[in-house]
């Protein structure tokens, strides 16, 4: 087993509904979905965010998409125009979750190495340039 950051195993997107943030996590490779399910329990996610999530964490499964959806209740300082947070609409809870460290089999760690991060030598000048 090797410890890696979740960012190498999955991508994610988050949004808001009132004071609840949602984070959808999608395995890069369909074959890693079961591993994702096993590692990313609601309890684990709740513990990861700690004081940032005042309420419960709920988890839902979307096996067809290789995805899990988490609801983080009481995460947005009241939500909407009430919130004083820079991220009042929970847009970057996604990458916050991808900071999590998880244990994966060595071959998975090897296959995921470097994934999810900008490759070395890449420059922002290259972003969105037509090929």
């Amino acid at each position, binding site marked *: 087993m090797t410890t890696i950051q979740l960012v190498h195993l999955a991508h994610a997107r988050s949004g808001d509904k009132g004071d609840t943030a949602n984070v959808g996590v999608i395995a*890069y490779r369909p074959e890693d979905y079961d591993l994702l399910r096993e590692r990313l329990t609601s309890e684990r996610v709740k513990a990861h965010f700690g004081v940032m999530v005042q309420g419960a964490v709920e988890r*839902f499964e979307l096996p067809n998409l290789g995805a899990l959806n988490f609801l983080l209740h009481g995460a947005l300082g009241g939500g909407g125009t009430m919130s004083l947070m820079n991220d009042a609409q929970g847009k970057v809870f996604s990458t916050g979750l991808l900071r999590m460290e998880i244990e994966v089999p060595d071959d998975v760690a090897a296959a995921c190495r470097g994934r999810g991060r900008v490759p070395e030598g890449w420059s922002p000048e290259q972003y969105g340039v037509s090929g």
Partner: protein
Amino acid sequence: MSDRKDVVKVASGQGFWGDDLEAPVRQVQGGPIDYLMLDYLAEVTMSILQKQRARDPGAGFARDFVPLMERIFPACIECGVRVVTNAGGVNPVGCAEALVEAGRAAGVSGRAKVGLVTGDDLMDRLDGLLADGHELAHMETGMPLVEIRDQVQSANAYIGAEPIVRALELGADVVVTGRSTDTALTYGPLIHEFGWAADDHDRVAAGVVAGHINECGAQCTGGNCLIDWWNIEGMGSVGFPIVEVSADGSFVVTKHLGSGGRVTRASVSEQIVYEMGDPSTYITPDVIADFTSIHLDDLGNDRVRVHGVKGRARTDFLKVSIAYAGGWKATGTLTYSWPDAGAKALAADRILRERLDRLGLVFDEIRTELVGWDSTHGALVGPPPADVPEVQLRVGVRGADRAAVDRFTREIAPLVLTGPPSVTGFAGGRPRVQEIMAYWPALIRREAVESHLVVDVREV
């Protein structure tokens, strides 16, 4: 029926109020489409529009929509592209009137019809509804609305496809609604074109999924896409999504040929999970869609096929979006530099709080964040390292007492000469006091709203 199309193309032109102003123009000019849907509303947007209407009774709709239509109205009429939008916000009548004027200015008089959907606005009926036993309890806390009745500024029911379909049947070239659900702007035209029955749950649910993918504009075609984002090409002229829907409800997500961005299984998956609750129970006014039933096939060349969607019968309720005056807030910022930038910012925060305390100011919340360090990932990142080059101290307060919030805004600038050193970034002046329009989601029995929906078609 023989005159029905095999495939109906619904293009997305706006994902929120403030989105790329050129995108709808590119959608109309970039190739053949049947419908252009423009989604302007979010929970926060309704509150903002309500604040604008409170200051000016003629305001309260997405104003960008009117000059946009003045630009594209002739092309839409000539190419047979029909527009469906919730730009009406909290003032759809004002929006439709401005649209008719814009159509005349654009030279489509006598050739165009505007459909106006009203009846979602419950504000004038609110006391009657409460008296009739509609509690409008907060969906999360269960608190009944009477507790804050005096603070309510607006109340709008989320309405579905039925009035949009009726407007299209009456020949409307542009349909303007108030708080239509975002997804109905896409599946309303599909129900109209294919004649799907209300109890054809799977097909209507497929339309809901198409609507969910469309409703955030380029967020499914490469925008805000996390996977492999650095390799996505042509983002300077990113293509907005187009759903090409067949009568059986299956559809292909794509974008105009030659436009930038990317449509892949991954880009579409990211949008599907966006703002998702329980995916097996995605509730809309017309059907409950099961997002766990979605199958995606990546066909290559920026085409993703979506099929297999299941749905079940709608509920007896509609959701209501209520905005209420929730007090006042303000946020002030100052920038601290190396060395020990984080320590300086937090020390400034400490004396600021001491002064607020000594002044006897009472707030419901004071929140401190360090932009450049923890304002996105909070406690996950711990305290800033001593050598962080700079941080921006960001302090916000909120409370019921406007005077207290106003006094807070005068306590930021003094820190420049009365607090920790190496501070700058105060040239923007005093922070602005903002009124909070808080959001109160509730449910209402659908017949209480549906009996009041009115569809009106006007000649330009």
